[in-house]
């Protein structure tokens, strides 16, 4: 019997995923990944415990109902190195990161898959609404789910062929309603948590406060890091707002507080709606412009990963998605460097944001994607 490790969160989707695989005849092992937890016990008490623990308890109950072995694995170090450090680093360089993508690639897949293979499993499985197909060209790609409203492929574009070939997504073949129904029928004790839009490790969505705390903690632990004048902390220093003509029009609070397309919380009056058009780390400036100045018809991306194709020859017409909530827009992509791509949209798109991922689709399949640099 082939072994499969199911990453269990205690929620409906991963719980039913475990059940479906069990029905398909796999030997299923449940694992909850412990990735982030406040290390300060006293502050944990003040916040009434940590989110991770309730997930563990929920998942453990589900595993016990399904009668499968269940373990908690510690990935705090991997999460800190690959997700938190990246998240903070990107903001400090005036980019707007997507930590879920880094978490998927390096923690949920790389680290979990490695340890699952270690303990004798052939696959890892998740409760994602997507499916993995082997295409006629021999490549693995991710296909959008039948539950279109809940498409989760955007955050998965960065998975490698090796990772995809060892991954199962059993709920992708079903509608969300059917999965809920199954959970109810099986009397699985699952938590019916709403899907969170917030970043899991940032309380109250206050990422600027989070970054400040994180850097302060780091500074206290390592005496060789200083906050004053150090380049890596520049994103926190106040600087000038400028308009698109280059004139200084006010003072900003530090680049980490801003993202391209932002309108709220700028604290300046221009006589018309004002938006962040660009962040300039080299001069510590925030460029402000009108609504029409937030639109652009092109972007450049690097850190590329291809899925449905091995590499990009010449040009290709795709649907390109520039953020999780973006519907996707028709565009042409072509290579401009060994790890660089130019993407030109048929229609200008609003708020193309450096640091976010751009993901390319051919129909329902993920072609590949990269990180927007400008």
């Amino acid at each position, binding site marked *: 019997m082939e072994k499969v490790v199911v990453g269990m969160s205690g929620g409906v989707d991963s719980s039913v995923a475990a059940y479906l695989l069990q029905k398909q005849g796999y030997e299923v092992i449940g694992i909850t990944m412990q990735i982030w937890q406040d290390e300060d016990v006293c502050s944990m008490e003040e916040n009434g415990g940590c989110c991770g623990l309730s997930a563990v308890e929920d998942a453990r109950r589900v595993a016990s109902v399904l009668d499968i072995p269940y373990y908690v694995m*510690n990935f705090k170090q991997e999460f800190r190195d690959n997700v938190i450090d990246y998240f903070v680093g990107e903001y400090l360089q005036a980019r707007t990161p997507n930590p879920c993508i880094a978490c998927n690639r390096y923690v949920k897949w790389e680290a979990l898959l490695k*340890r699952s293979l270690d303990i004798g499993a052939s696959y890892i499985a998740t409760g994602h609404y997507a499916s993995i197909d082997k295409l006629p060209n021999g490549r693995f790609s991710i296909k959008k789910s039948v539950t279109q409203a809940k498409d989760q492929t955007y955050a998965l574009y960065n998975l490698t062929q090796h990772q995809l070939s060892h991954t199962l997504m059993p709920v992708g073949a079903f509608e969300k309603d059917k999965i809920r129904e199954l959970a109810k029928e099986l009397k699985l004790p699952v938590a019916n948590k709403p899907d969170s839009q917030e970043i899991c490790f940032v309380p109250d969505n206050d990422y600027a406060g989070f970054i400040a705390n994180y850097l302060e903690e780091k500074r206290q632990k390592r005496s060789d890091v200083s906050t004053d004048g150090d380049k890596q902390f520049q994103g926190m220093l106040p600087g000038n707002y400028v308009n698109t003509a280059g004139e200084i029009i006010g003072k900003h609070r530090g680049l980490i507080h801003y993202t391209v397309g932002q309108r709220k919380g700028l604290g300046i009056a221009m006589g018309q709606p004002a938006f962040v058009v660009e962040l300039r780390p080299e001069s510590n400036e925030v460029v402000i412009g009108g609504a029409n100045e937030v639109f652009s018809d092109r972007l450049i991306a690097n850190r590329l990963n291809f899925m449905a194709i091995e590499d990009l020859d010449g040009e290709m017409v795709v649907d390109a998605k520039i953020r999780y909530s973006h519907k996707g827009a028709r565009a042409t992509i072509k290579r401009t460097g060994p790890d660089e791509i130019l993407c030109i949209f048929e229609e200008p798109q609003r708020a193309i944001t450096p640091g976010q991922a751009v993901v390319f689709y051919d129909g329902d399949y993920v072609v590949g994607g990269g990180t927007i640099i400008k």
Partner: protein
Amino acid sequence: MDKKIYLDNAATTKTRPEVVEAMLPYFTDLYGNPSSVYEFATQNKKAVDEARETIAKAMGAEISEIYFTGSGTEADNWALKATADAYAAKGNHIITSKIEHHAILHTCEYLQKHGVEVTYIDVDENGILKLDELEKAIRPTTILISVMFANNEIGTIQPIKEIGAIAKKHNVLFHTDAVQAFGQLEINVDDFGIDMMSASAHKLNGPKGIGFLYIRKGIKIRSLIHGGAQERQRRAGTENVPGIVGFGKAVEIALETMEERTKKEIMLRNLLMKRVLEEIPFVRVNGDKVRRLPNNANFSFQFIEGESLLIMLDMKNICGSSGSACTSGSLDPSHVLLAIGLPHEVAHGSLRLTVSEDITEEDINYTVDRVKEIVEKLRQMSPLYEDFMKKR
């Protein structure tokens, strides 16, 4: 092999059948509340007193110096918090070690947030407290030294007598967390200069949910739990009569069998360590070779994740542990292994196996064979190991 091989006796132990038998009547027939006036309840009061006497005698204490608690952790919390409170007029400084159980360390962190100053003394590479540092750390405001009798992870036994003497010389109270040691080692509170001591029944084949704090007569103590006159008005809450009776019985048996049991555990433990050291490369034993709990073995295997090793041992029906169990069951690098100087990556590949008298030589041999196979397999899949072997 379908049989479970339980090698995690530092986490908890099997309750002895004799202990269960002694407890049973106090659930079914003799269920009265010891605080009540009628004859039916006084039998329970008597049973509690008898258990208290057995325990007091086992450590050379007076009956009135034993206070039952809900756990060893509660006893640790009580000792620290109550001393900080009752001796606030004398000072606000507590000294402890870097390798204490979290019941002590987290309580210290809590107290630090409430104005108490805490000094954490280093240990040497075998986990033995640095006595010179301890003595130097004492200030006029020091009110308490709390050092564990024996470590739960690496089994190292502390120089308790010397610590007791230092405490006495400087007129500082001395508390020891003896949760791992009580029932395994001979303890006499007067000989060792112990003023307060925590212990727990389930570590010595007694039931879970019952512990005690020994408090030497004359020491000022404040209650941690309020709401009744139980335990000489120091620890409120209806007595856990079956638990207390079971604790008494477990101590009685632990003392009777200590010599023989310890001999067997040492033999099994030594066989385990010898085979692992001889047959598996790149492994080290953590903790002191001599001053060590009889049932404890703690290894670090280079190039592997202890977590994967534990899961794979579980698949072979072998129960082990890596560091101390945390609430969620997932593992951080142990603060004890880091304190004895292990680098993070070595601390991650650690395995603690703690034997009991129920274990056989055959069990040990089966376990070593499996550990050997699993470590080999994990190393074959480890990029770190591959790099290391290439460089050789």
